[in-house]
């Protein structure tokens, strides 16, 4: 049974049209992460939450926002997608996040920008 679920699996949007990606988890984990992965590259951390505490990476563009209304759900909002934002977006969770915890990933949302 899927424990980290991302919807939709594929998302197509137009240049400049806001888009929201969603992630839900059934693991009751404290920490949720959003990673961006471009073709054949390593996942790049955008931001993460410890419960409701939001942590933004210094080089994450302002165009990217996130919301975590409760433990189970986390959203990635891209306010004005550019062609360079086309990528796989991966949501992950972990427990207390001590630096030794396993990351559980969803299957990702492949975003295309036309």
């Amino acid at each position: 049974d899927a424990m980290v679920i991302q919807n939709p699996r594929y998302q197509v949007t137009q240049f400049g049209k806001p888009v929201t990606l969603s992630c839900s988890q059934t693991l009751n984990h404290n920490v949720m992460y959003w990673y961006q992965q471009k073709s054949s590259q390593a996942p790049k951390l955008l931001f993460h939450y410890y419960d409701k505490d939001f942590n933004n990476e210094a080089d994450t563009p302002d165009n990217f926002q996130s919301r975590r209304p409760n433990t189970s759900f986390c959203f990635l909002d891209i306010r004005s997608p550019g062609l360079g934002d086309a990528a796989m977006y991966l949501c992950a969770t972990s427990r207390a996040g001590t630096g030794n915890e396993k990351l559980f990933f969803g299957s990702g949302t492949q975003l295309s920008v036309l």
Partner: protein
Amino acid sequence: TQLLEQSPQFLSIQEGENLTVYCNSSSVFSSLQWYRQEPGEGPVLLVTVVTGGEVKKLKRLTFQFGDARKDSSLHITAAQPGDTGLYLCAGGTPGTYKYIFGTGTRLKVLA
């Protein structure tokens, strides 16, 4: 900025050959994890190493954490086509909840 460099970036070998993938950094990590990722899927954890010098074996895969906890290696013995995929190391940042991924090694094992 913490960086994890993996080498080689690409590797294409014949079934039955052995290979080693390296993950190097100038930073110290609280743990080093190895993941394998299939196309169109999220990464799946293979192993976590925590102690400097630690060696873990998972069937034909052997993982080692450097003594200074700055580097790691993954050795595959007698590679099989099912080992094909993107191998990623990820470092846990001490005192935070962050995991930084390495640059990745794309392995293809030919039958």
